[in-house]
């Protein structure tokens, strides 16, 4: 929503809603924790597992929010055809929110993180840590999932590096700060047709949070007797 007293034809538009922004920064923290605890290992593995369960919940939240959330958070809004990606690379794209190439990177990161969570939940470290869903699979399967988990970590890391590089590129070359909009949600208006986001109200939020918490509960394995 716009701040009071400012008509919609103001010098800035509200692009990213608060739940989305909270999602983004919480994900950043948990993924960082997951990487560090994985490298440290040993007694840090318990925290690693908890970070993974948290990320599972966040991913489900984003999935639901991508369907029921506000305008620019919705997948239907920013997921575009390869043609649109070509337009963007040729400089012909004009829009707000995720550009077509950025959209692909969002999907790639979400998918890679989903694979990481799925493989990690029943992985084992040969020493004293089993993922929370380890009892659900055979040992051989756990070993295979553990190996995939290790390989996919490189994919996640690469995508994150590319993501940060893209943000840096926008800042230094295109002189556009993309970090601040993800913090406070506002971006400078470029033309009269740009509008602040709509939708993503309290009902959508409750549904998304409920499903996210259910997913985290499922991932935690606490229901396994």
């Amino acid at each position, binding site marked *: 929503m716009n701040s009071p007293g400012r008509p919609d034809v103001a010098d800035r538009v509200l692009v990213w809603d608060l739940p989305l922004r909270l999602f983004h920064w919480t994900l950043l923290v948990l993924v960082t924790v997951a990487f560090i605890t994985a490298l440290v290992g040993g007694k840090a593995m318990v925290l690693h597992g908890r970070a993974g369960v948290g990320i599972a919940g966040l991913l489900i939240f984003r999935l639901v929010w991508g369907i029921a959330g506000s305008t620019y958070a919705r997948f239907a809004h920013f997921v575009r055809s390869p043609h649109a990606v070509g337009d963007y690379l040729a400089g012909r794209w004009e829009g707000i929110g995720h550009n077509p190439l950025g959209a692909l990177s969002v999907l790639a990161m979400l998918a890679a993180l989903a694979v990481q969570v799925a493989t990690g939940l029943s992985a084992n470290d040969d*020493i004293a840590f089993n993922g929370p869903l380890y009892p659900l699979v055979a040992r051989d399967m756990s070993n295979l999932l553990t190996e995939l988990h290790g390989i996919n970590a490189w994919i996640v890391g690469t995508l994150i590096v590319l993501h940060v590089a893209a943000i840096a590129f926008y800042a230094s070359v295109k002189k556009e700060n993309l970090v601040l909009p993800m913090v406070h949600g506002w971006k400078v208006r470029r033309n009269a047709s740009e509008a602040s986001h709509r939708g993503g109200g309290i009902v959508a939020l409750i549904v998304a949070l409920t499903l996210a918490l259910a997913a985290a509960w499922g991932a935690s394995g606490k229901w396994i007797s």
Partner: protein
Amino acid sequence: MKRCASVTTTLLLGLAFSSAAMAVTTEDAIKYRKSVMAAQQWHMLAMGAMVKGDTPYDKADFERRAESVAHLNKMFMEGFTVAGADKGESRAKPEVWATMEKFKGGAEKLGVESAKLVQAAQSGDMKAIKTQYGDVQGVCKGCHDSFQRKER
């Protein structure tokens, strides 16, 4: 003829009694050392559950398990040092044998830390136990990082 028979008999008897040491296969050596370490993991997991509070802490049980891990420590090395142990398919990297002194050093460090865990277990002091349990985990990981292939 008699001389031929006695020579043959001597040779046969000699062969029968000379192999007093059982010949071990590479496959058995790999299976043995994996089993010993799997047994360590079994006890580590059970202790870990008590450390995390997932299962109730039982002092006697924890002590028994810490002693098992310490004892199992003394058992796995021969699975790496017998003839043919460096062959076959396993996750042991060639570094185990190329830097055997370092590998043995790692095993000794595990011996020291697991002995400390036994002492902590005997004290019943959960804070000391938690710290020492974490240290044992760290030593396991240290050797794995250097000597165990990630591919399964």
